Structure formats: structure tokens, C-alpha cells
């Protein structure tokens, strides 16, 4: 990391920490919370999709599992929400290992892997709709009980700091991963799996690690969602909407980059918000925007916003991946 990057990062961090002091509007704090939450989950997707090259279309499977794990245990056994974070991470991670074990053991790659993750999320959605302990289609309401110990805050600022913590933690995880043996091996798998195997890389174990970490991080996203909105249902938790939004954030931001998902989340949600401001609050409008953005990004900027930023900062070109 260069001096300039360090300074810029520090400045952004200070601004981020002070944001709730300057922003009094609940709406805009809520907007920032959404950005941070999806940045964190986009980062999780990026570990599997960007670094390891395995595109998931069903990250809702991890999001929903984390959300339901903490909610069900909180309602039934009074599990403390802060402990719920660990439970959600474990539940999301386990779901990741389960789906990963089945998919990778049987050698699914590319589009097939994408489709099977989608199918797993759909299976979970149907099960959550039917099972009794998930509240079925009605969903689950978490009891209102304001108090920091209970992770319920009177205003949005408290939630904002939790979301900021999640986003920072994800950035840290991605940054560490990029500089680790696992990171090098995942990149090798993405680029050429056979060559990686020839060089002694246990590709199955590495992919499993990637989906486990990704699942755990996304499960934590579900944990935050449940305790923030105090309500989940099968469509929110396991529906395709969340899978697609997570994927979009990572793709728009830039695959396999540390800051890409954060940039992607900012751009995506700002664009969606702008569309609604300009053209009225109609359902689906922001999604039209998202869809167009996805096609345009794949067409014109396959290395995402992070690639664009990198080209600005080093106009001489250089050695980045295409």
C-alpha cells in the first residue's frame, strides 16, 4: 500500500466514522447502511466468485440461513443477538461447505455451478415456506426490546456503526486473503484449474475453503438484516432478489479486487436511488437500472469500477489483469 493510498483510506475512514454526526436524516443513514451491508456481502461473493472464479447465483442460501439461524434461536431460546453473529457465521459457513462439498466433489464448474447454487437457494426457500419453526410464508417477527445488549438501537446511528464494522471486517478479510497462500491458490484455480493441480494445489480443499468463508460472511449479512429489520420471510431470506443484488455489487465493482464491492455497492445503490428520484417511486425502476448496468458493465468494463479507478491512478497502464 502506498502512502497516498493509506492517506486516502484513512480520510475515508474518518469521514465514515463521523457520518452519523453530520447526517441526521434517518433516510440517508438507512441508505448508507444498505450500501455497507451489501458491500460486505459483495465482498463475500467476491471471495468465491472473484478470487476463486466460481460464480454463485444463489448466495441467498447463505444469507437466509444466517438470518433464520439467529432469528429462530433468538425467538425460541432467547439467544443474545451478539452471540447470534457467531451462530449465523457458523450456519452460513456450514451451508457453504455443504453446497460446496456436493458441487465441487462432482466437479461442477462455470454455468453448472451457478445453476446448482440457484437451485439450492430455491429448495431452501420452499422448505422455509413449509417448515413450522421458520414461521412458514408468514415469516418471523423478532421481538422489540431496545438496548445495546440486545443489539437494538433507538436511532439508525447504532446500526450504521455495526454495518460499518461488517464492511471494514470484510475488506480486511479480502485484503488478508489477497496476500495469503490461499489467495494465490484461489487465483490459480480461477485461471487454470489443471495447472494449479499440477503445482500441488488441492483445488477441492481450496474451493471448499472459499465457499465456506464466503458463506460465513454472507450469513453474517443475514444476521444483520434480521436484527436490523426485525422481520424476515422466505422470499426476503432465500428469494433470488438478494442473490442477484449481492452478485451485482461484486460484478459492477470489479471481480477479485479488495475495494471493488464497496465501489459497486455505492454505485449501484446511488444509481438506483437516483433513478427513483428522477422518475418517481415506482416498483422495479431501480431494478431496471441494475439490469442495464449489469449488461453494460460486462460489455464495456469487465474489470469493473475498481479497474476504472486503477486505470485513472496509473495512467501508464501496467500489469493489472484484464
Amino acid at each position, binding site marked *: 500500500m502506498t502512502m497516498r493510498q493509506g492517506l486516502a483510506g484513512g480520510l475515508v475512514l474518518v469521514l465514515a466514522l463521523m457520518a452519523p454526526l453530520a447526517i441526521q436524516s434517518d433516510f440517508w443513514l438507512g441508505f448508507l447502511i444498505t450500501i455497507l451491508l451489501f458491500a460486505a456481502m459483495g465482498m463475500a461473493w467476491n471471495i468465491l466468485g472473484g478470487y476463486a472464479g466460481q460464480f454463485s447465483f444463489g448466495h441467498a442460501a447463505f444469507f437466509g440461513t444466517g438470518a433464520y439461524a439467529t432469528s429462530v434461536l433468538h425467538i425460541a431460546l432467547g439467544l443474545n443477538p451478539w452471540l447470534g453473529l457467531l451462530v449465523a457465521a457458523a450456519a452460513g459457513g456450514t451451508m457453504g461447505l455443504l453446497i460446496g462439498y456436493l458441487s465441487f466433489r462432482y466437479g461442477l464448474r462455470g454455468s453448472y455451478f451457478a445453476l446448482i447454487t440457484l437451485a439450492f437457494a430455491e429448495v431452501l426457500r420452499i422448505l422455509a415456506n413449509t417448515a413450522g419453526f421458520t414461521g412458514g410464508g408468514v415469516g418471523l417477527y423478532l421481538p422489540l426490546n431496545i438496548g445495546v445488549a440486545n443489539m437494538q438501537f433507538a436511532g439508525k446511528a447504532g446500526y450504521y456503526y455495526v454495518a460499518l464494522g461488517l464492511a471494514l471486517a470484510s475488506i480486511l478479510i479480502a485484503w488478508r486473503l489477497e496476500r495469503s497462500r490461499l489467495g494465490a491458490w484461489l487465483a490459480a484455480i480461477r485461471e487454470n484449474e489443471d495447472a494449479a493441480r499440477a503445482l500441488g494445489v488441492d483445488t477441492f480443499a481450496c474451493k471448499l475453503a472459499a465457499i465456506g468463508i464466503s458463506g460465513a460472511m454472507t450469513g453474517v449479512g443475514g444476521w444483520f438484516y434480521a436484527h436490523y429489520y426485525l422481520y424476515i420471510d422466505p422470499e426476503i431470506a432465500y428469494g433470488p432478489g438478494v442473490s442477484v443484488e449481492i452478485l451485482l455489487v461484486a460484478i459492477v465493482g470489479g471481480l477479485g479486487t479488495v475495494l471493488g464491492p464497496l465501489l459497486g455497492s455505492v454505485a449501484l445503490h446511488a444509481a438506483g436511488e437516483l433513478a427513483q428520484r428522477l422518475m418517481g417511486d415506482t416498483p422495479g425502476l431501480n431494478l431496471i437500472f441494475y439490469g442495464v448496468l449489469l449488461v453494460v458493465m*460486462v460489455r464495456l468494463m469487465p474489470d469493473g469500477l475498481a479497474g476504472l479507478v486503477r486505470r485513472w491512478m496509473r495512467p501508464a497502464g501496467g500489469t493489472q489483469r484484464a
Partner: protein
Amino acid sequence: MLDPVILLPAAINGLTMGAVYALVALGLTLIYGVLHIINFAHGSLLMVGLYGAFFLYQAGGIDPYLSLVLLVPALFGLGYILQWGVIGRASHGSDQNVLLVTLGVSIVIENLALYFFTGDTRTIEAPYAFEMVDIAVARVPLPRLVAFGAALAIAALLWLLMAKTDLGRAIRAVAKERQGARLVGIDVDHIFAMSFGIGTACVGAAAALLLPMFYVSPHVGHVFVLVAFTVVVLGGMGSFIGALLGGLIIGVTESLGGLIFGETFGQLAIFLIFIAILLFRPTGFFGGRPS
């Protein structure tokens, strides 16, 4: 409960629904077989067809079965333009990119529908919607019977098109060996767009047959898209006969599974079949090449 008197009608109903699944899957499998891409937007194109049929009936008083004549060419054109103008250009030849681009297209189409037509579920009331026909011990609604027959007829036409015409030969040549096809002077991009167009025309036909017995809403494609994927992998990617048989099998499984174990199980069974085939037999059961 497992009396044949109940089972048989359920099976026949399943067969009729399966024929529509087969029709949707035929388009998908054609696109896969030629372009080697998985078209995620297939379900939303079906939805476009359903809205087309709906408004032709509502505003123009055109019977859904008659609207077939308009919908098939219209959706063919839409598919051709989509592949030629958007999907082919944006995907840079990577199959994960194709998946992303077609996902983007489906998001756009669905939410345009949501924007213009709202999320309301709409149905038409065709005069023959509730007419029943007796077959053996079963009473089958007429629209289902029509759909069944028409789906089989369209599958036969598609087969003829592929087997007997110059276009079919060119498509098969491109599917097999696109470099070679290019060398002998076939315009590969045109053939890709034609194949995509024909695949989309299939959902146009499916839409016209489906509307009298189903509904339309912006998200109606979801119901079909994963089912169609299941049918396609069950039948073997790119196999016509596989798609046809696969569609019928899935239709019956859903119907009987739903009857015996409850409706949720019917849906669940489809996804579980899908997962199991992808894991254990990704080439499907009726030929097709390994991925």
C-alpha cells in the same frame, strides 16, 4: 388415495402440463445446443409472450390460439435482435458472462413489465376455458388437451426444420463445428441469432397455448425457467427428444408428487431432481455431449 381413478387423471394432467414445459425447454435446449450458452432470460421471454397474448385478447379480441400466428414471428424477431444486438456482443465469448448478460436482460424485461403492467396477476376468460373432455377415466380441461397436441405438433415441426431444411443444416453445422462452418462461408453470427430467435419463438408458441389455462404476471417466468432448466439437463443439454420426454416426465412427477405428498413436494421434487442430475449425471439421460 392411490386409487387409479385419482392417479390417472393426475397423470394425464401432468402430461399436458409437461408438454408445455417441453415446449419451453425445446427452445432452451436449441439455444444451448447451438450457442452452448445457458439463456437465463428464457423465462422472461415467455412472460413477454404471455403479456402479448393477454393484450391481443383483451384489446384486440384475438383468441390466444389465433395469436399464435402473431406471437411466434414477433418473439422470433425479439430473440434474433436480443442475441445479435446484445447477448452476442456483450458476452466476449465467456459462458459465465453469457449467464450474467442474460440475467441482466431478464431483470430488465421483468421490471419493465412490472413498471408498465404493475405486479397484478391477470387471467383471461376464454369461452372454452372450463370445457372438459373425457379421456378414459379422466376429465381433462380442453385447453390442456389443445396445449398437449399443439406442443407435440410444434416439436415435430421443429424437428423437421432442423432435419430437412437448409437452415436446419446450417444450424447443425454451426452447433457441431463453428470454425469449420465459418470456413465454408456460413454467417455464424446470423445463425446464432436465428437459433436464438427460433428458441424464443418456441416460448411465443408456449405462451399462446398457456394463457387460456394459466395466468400472467411480471414474475411468471420464474415458475418456468428453473423447470425448463431441469427438463433440459434431464433430457441432456441440446437434445430435442430429451427435452420432449424430459418435459413429460417432469410434468407427471410434479403432478403425481403433488397429489401424493402435497403441492410443496411437487415443486421441491423438481429442484431435487435438478440438483441430483447436475451432480450425478450432468450429461442427462438421452444422449447429449458432456459439458
